[in-house]
């Protein structure tokens, strides 16, 4: 921070009677009262801090009756007031953030404070030093250049992205037109398991299901049990993510609850230990009707 001038030297006792306001004034031993700026060369549009400081012998919570100078040449920002008690009195400060409006030389006049001087018990007006500032022009050229460069950058980037997308699309179309086509292969015929789907079973489903059940009856193995289970799930319109509990919960069997009983029975044969597959499959057979 650059001090505008030594604050202590600027304690000015004007000894000006304030008269009528005297009764509202505090009695203070004012040891210093000054004003400073954190820069003497601020720029238009660039904030800087103006600080008014005072030291009094008394313990006070805040400094009253301070009149700020004319600051119409600036836009005012934040204002922070602080009083700190010390062993030798109180240090008070008020910091104002100011933003210069125009370039040129500006002198901020003194701030004043009215208080009763304990030495003569009379109202006095104390004044700080003034602060002279040399306000520089706004860095418009730089700001303008930045905006220009920014616009240039984004426009270039947009054009580049557009061209890239165009190249990708053209390349893809070229690839589709020129790639060798693979010969069509007939899908392999899978006898079992029957695919599970939510669609309604086809008309010849019953004969297929009976064939699966007969195959299970002839040879009760786990793969055949699983095939019957898949067919039953298909008949119930089960989605591939649905478990038996889901089907029961949503009453998938509707008015044919024996289908759930059949699914329960064949589920046992499908997931039980190897030694019990045959037994469980044979137990399930009586339920396996559509």
């Amino acid at each position, binding site marked *: 921070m650059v001090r505008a001038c030594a604050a202590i030297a600027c304690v000015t006792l004007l000894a000006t009677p304030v008269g009528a306001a005297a009764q509202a004034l505090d009695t203070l031993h004012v040891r210093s009262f000054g004003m400073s700026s954190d820069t003497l060369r601020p720029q238009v549009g660039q904030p800087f801090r103006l600080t008014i400081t005072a030291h009094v012998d008394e313990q006070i919570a805040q400094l009253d009756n301070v009149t700020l100078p004319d600051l119409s040449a600036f836009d005012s920002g934040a204002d922070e007031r602080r009083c700190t008690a010390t062993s030798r009195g109180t240090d008070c400060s008020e910091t104002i953030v100011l933003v210069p409006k125009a370039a040129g030389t500006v002198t901020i006049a003194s701030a004043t404070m009215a208080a009763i001087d304990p030495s003569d018990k009379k109202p006095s007006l104390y004044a700080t030093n003034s602060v002279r500032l040399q306000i520089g022009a706004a860095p418009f050229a730089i700001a303008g250049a930045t905006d220009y460069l920014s616009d240039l950058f984004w426009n270039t980037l947009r054009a580049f992205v557009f061209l890239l997308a165009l190249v990708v699309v053209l390349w893809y179309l070229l690839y589709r037109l020129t790639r060798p086509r693979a010969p069509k292969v007939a899908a392999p015929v899978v006898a079992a398991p029957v695919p599970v789907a939510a669609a309604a079973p086809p008309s010849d489903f019953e004969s297929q299901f009976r064939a699966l059940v007969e195959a299970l009856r002839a040879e009760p193995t786990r793969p055949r049990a699983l095939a019957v289970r898949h067919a039953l799930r298909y008949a119930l319109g089960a989605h591939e993510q649905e478990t038996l509990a889901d089907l029961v919960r949503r009453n998938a069997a509707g008015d044919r609850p024996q289908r759930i009983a059949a699914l329960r029975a064949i589920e*046992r044969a499908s*997931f039980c230990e190897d030694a*019990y597959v045959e037994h469980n499959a044979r137990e399930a057979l009586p339920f396996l009707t559509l």
Partner: protein
Amino acid sequence: MLEALAATVVGQRDVLEALLYATIAGGHVVLEGPPGLAKTLACRALAVAVGGAFKRVQFTPDLLPSDIVGTRIFDQRSGEFTTTLGPIFANVVLADEINRAPAKVQSSLLEAMQERQVTIGPQTHALPDPFLVTATMNPLDSDGTYALPLAQLDRFLMKILVDYPSPEEELAILGRFGGEAPAMPANVASMDDLVRWRAQARAVHVEAKLAAYAVALVGATRRAHPYLDRGASPRATLALVALARARALVDGRTFAVPDDVRASAPGVLRHRLAFNYRTITENVDSEGVIAEIVAGVPVP
């Protein structure tokens, strides 16, 4: 067993079932829910029902590892150190509000959970068998808590969410307790029974297709997901199958079915998935994310 627990704890049927499954599966559980929902009571009732020694440790920020595992004390008369075993030497240990203790205390407990033994000074002491840790966490007061890292949460077989009872259940609580301390359940089983159940559960058959389903369920959590940073570990797959076996056994079966695996999935996954910041910023229900992942895996 469930009826015995239900005689003490009103409602919370899902919680009691999950506790029983985890006990049979031989894993530790963490219960999460607001205060006053009978989390502690359920754990105590379980210990009483199986006739095991029960110890409760209230986790606080100033708790030390020696407060849990035990310590060595110098005996001036004999001039030797004697070992005092901590409260962890019980069949059912309730770590109440586990997230209120600092990491070193959580680590000491979780090491014991994993190794099933504790080293105090030069001696290693085996923990009682069966040994079950039930930990509780309160999701509401996060001030002054130490969240358990995922690596430590992974040691828990499952996480059970405890929700508020229905109005009917709350009326039943009023009628049953009325300000008195709840009566503990009858001792319906013994530690030997529990050991036998665990052996039976381990023997429950899991068909190859079902094992593949469990692997696929856990694997689905590792695929790129907008709300997940990291999926579950293979330990989750082991937990899933172990819990499916326990469910099958409780249901009176010697083999597991797809429903056993899928019903176990949320409890196994919810504390093992690393949800990213978007679940918080977009106020996404993590249970919904898990349900969506589980529902996306085809049933065998």
